[in-house]
């Protein structure tokens, strides 16, 4: 048992830390999403220039070929220093790895470089209005027409579709096959007449995600990834990659939030003159969240050790995603509880506590137990695949 870094890993951490200290552009602009995306694109170009974009990708494809521990170090450091997110998150975390794992040489040649440079933004077309947790029931149809496919259907919760050049699209190519087998994974050009993205306004008032209406859009045959009928398997690798890569960044973010929560408690005065940090009830709750964050971090080390031994992330990763959602929501709920009567006052209000940051966090974190696999579905996965309980009905 050893929870320390090797000398070369420490050197890597120091290099990451030093580079971020010199280059981190800091907080994102508070303007429109267009401005935010321009800022993130600029940041991603800087990351790429220094070789920090796609660090998990093999060197031959423009990545750094970093080990799993180095990846964990990088995302932890970036989160600890509150560096912004790169513009092409989905391309880097999912699109690129899928093309590398399942794509043809021509696809690798065509798509990988513009993902790294943020020249082409990627989005993910999986969920549909009628197919959420039951993804394999999706109805978007792709019909062969010469050396093209003609696609019609609707996708939803498509993050950054309004900025995307490419969509990782899963569509039904064989309506007669069992539901998991008739699916194919495509790369669909978003810049064509048959595709329309309409932003959906979220409960925070922002519009990161979209509905995508697809009406006889055309996809050339060479944009099939992993073979016709293999879409489910390709999509699952994508989701596993998404979950495994983000854990350590999420953990570092939670550590930051805990620090902010402790400062909030010290600042908020209570009846009788003390601060919320003197209140036994709040102390208990902050400590419990801190303990849970610590168990999440240690679970992630155990998961990392296991993945390094076996080569693939196991279903245990679902525990971490579930726990992350609980803790993140718990943190923001407690912050509003500490703010007490001032809890409704949001960003921009003269008397808002901490400039309304926790109000935004409280609302945004409601999605944590839904996005990337609902907590309810994660519990099913754990029950069936970790505990071996019979399939739910």
């Amino acid at each position, binding site marked *: 048992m050893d929870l320390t870094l090797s000398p070369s890993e420490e050197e890597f951490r120091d290099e990451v830390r030093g580079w971020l200290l010199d280059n981190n552009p800091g907080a994102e602009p508070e303007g429109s999403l267009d401005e935010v995306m321009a800022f993130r694109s600029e940041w991603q170009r800087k990351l790429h220039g220094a070789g920090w974009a796609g660090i998990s990708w093999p060197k031959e494809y423009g990545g750094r070929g970093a080990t799993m521990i180095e990846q964990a170090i990088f995302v932890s450091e970036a989160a600890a220093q509150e560096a912004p997110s790169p513009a092409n998150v989905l391309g880097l975390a999912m699109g690129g790895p899928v093309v590398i794992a399942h794509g043809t040489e021509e696809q690798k040649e065509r798509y990988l470089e513009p993902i790294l440079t943020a020249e082409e933004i990627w989005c993910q077309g999986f969920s549909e209005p009628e197919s959420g947790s039951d993804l394999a029931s999706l109805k978007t149809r792709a019909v062969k027409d010469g050396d093209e496919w003609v696609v019609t259907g609707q996708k939803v919760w498509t993050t950054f579709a309004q900025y995307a050049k490419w969509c990782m699209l899963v569509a039904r190519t064989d309506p007669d096959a069992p539901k998991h087998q008739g699916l194919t994974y495509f790369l669909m050009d978003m810049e064509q007449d048959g595709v329309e993205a309409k932003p959906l306004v979220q409960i925070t008032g922002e519009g990161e995600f979209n509905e995508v209406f697809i009406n006889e859009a055309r996809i050339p045959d060479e944009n099939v990834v992993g073979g016709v009928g293999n879409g489910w398997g390709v999509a699952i690798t994508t989701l596993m990659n998404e979950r495994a890569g983000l854990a350590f960044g999420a953990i570092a973010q939670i550590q930051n939030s805990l620090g902010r929560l402790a400062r909030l408690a010290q600042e908020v005065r209570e009846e009788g003159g003390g601060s919320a*940090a003197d209140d036994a009830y709040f102390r208990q709750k902050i400590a419990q969240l801190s303990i849970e964050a610590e168990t999440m971090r*240690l679970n992630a080390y155990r998961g990392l*050790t296991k993945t390094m031994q076996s080569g693939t992330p196991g279903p245990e990763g679902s525990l971490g995603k579930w726990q992350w959602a609980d803790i993140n929501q718990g943190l923001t709920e407690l912050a509003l509880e500490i703010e007490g009567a001032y809890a409704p006052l949001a960003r921009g209000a003269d008397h808002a506590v901490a400039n309304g940051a926790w109000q935004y966090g409280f609302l945004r974190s409601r999605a944590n137990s839904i996005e990337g696999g609902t907590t309810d579905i994660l519990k099913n996965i754990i029950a069936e695949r970790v505990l071996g309980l019979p399939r739910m009905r």
Partner: protein
Amino acid sequence: MYFDLNDEQRAIRDTAREFLAARFKSERIREIAASEDGTDEAGWREMSELGWPGLALPEQWGGQGLETVELAVLFEEMGYSLAPSPLFSNTAVGLALAAGGSDAQKESHLRPLAEGTRRGTTAFVEASSTGTPGAYGMEAKTDGDGVVLDGEKVLVPDAAGADFFLVATGDGRRHLVDAAAAGVTVTPEASIDQTRRLSSVRFENVQLGPEATLPGHGADWEPVFDVCCVALAAESTGVAQRTLEMAVEYAKDRQQFGRPIGSYQAVSHRCAQMLLETENSRSAVYGAAWAAGAEPQSLPRAAASAKAYASDAGWRVPDASIQVHGGIGFTWEHDLHFFLKRGRANAALYGDSRWHRERVAKAIFAGVAPPAAV
């Protein structure tokens, strides 16, 4: 970075699992639980042959010299099997002697304790006190070059088979008192957990020579206390693991409305929650156990986190297992109640979850960072 057991630690776990499963079948646990004083001499002799009393004690004094991680591995198995044994209290005394005893005391008390030929237990908590760690207010009155103890200690574990007591006094000192000394009276107390007996012990004008008082002081006992917390948290993790497994097995077998109850999300999601709590406990325990040896400055917060988390999980998981089992889980005939009781009793020993969360809160507000690593 390698956060898992190594081959040697796995071997300790496997040996313990096998031995304890054979030695402590349900009927045997019930016999011991129903017996007059709860002791099991034969079981203790066998554990002594395996070297368990001295597992984490110095080799120089008859122990095996292993670390807190190995101790946690063993105690997780003790909880898993629900072995009724004085191993925990004996280990607590051994760790204190190793940390703050004189060479003469180590020769007279630690060596036989590590070898399993003499048993010790801790008499710390003062009667009528809050019962929290540190509420040890008995006075050690100076008497010539020794001291006199006069008062009552409560919540003393495994007093029936103990050869000597390690008695805490309010001045931060620890004293060795022979169980047969004049003025010592042991009174068994009824406890919900009949697999680890608790007693009160009266010390009436017990006169001790200078050789009885350990030279160690206040700060010497802190790491000992934290390692004991880790061992108890490990035991509670084993309790949770075992009752989780019982629930999963039952949920696969038991049919209602024509199918296994484990196919209903009301049941399967409860089991998933039990797994989450069990795995979190285990991670917290091994994180703290690792810190004890490799990063002692982060042991206090890590041990507090582990004890707080496992104290809750150690009874909530058995409790959830009873719910999964339905009526049969509430019967005396089923073993689950023994696990619930051990888990709940463990939660109260060495500081409950509320007490340890307050320790964590103090560290947070003092700006102490959690352990570093990545």
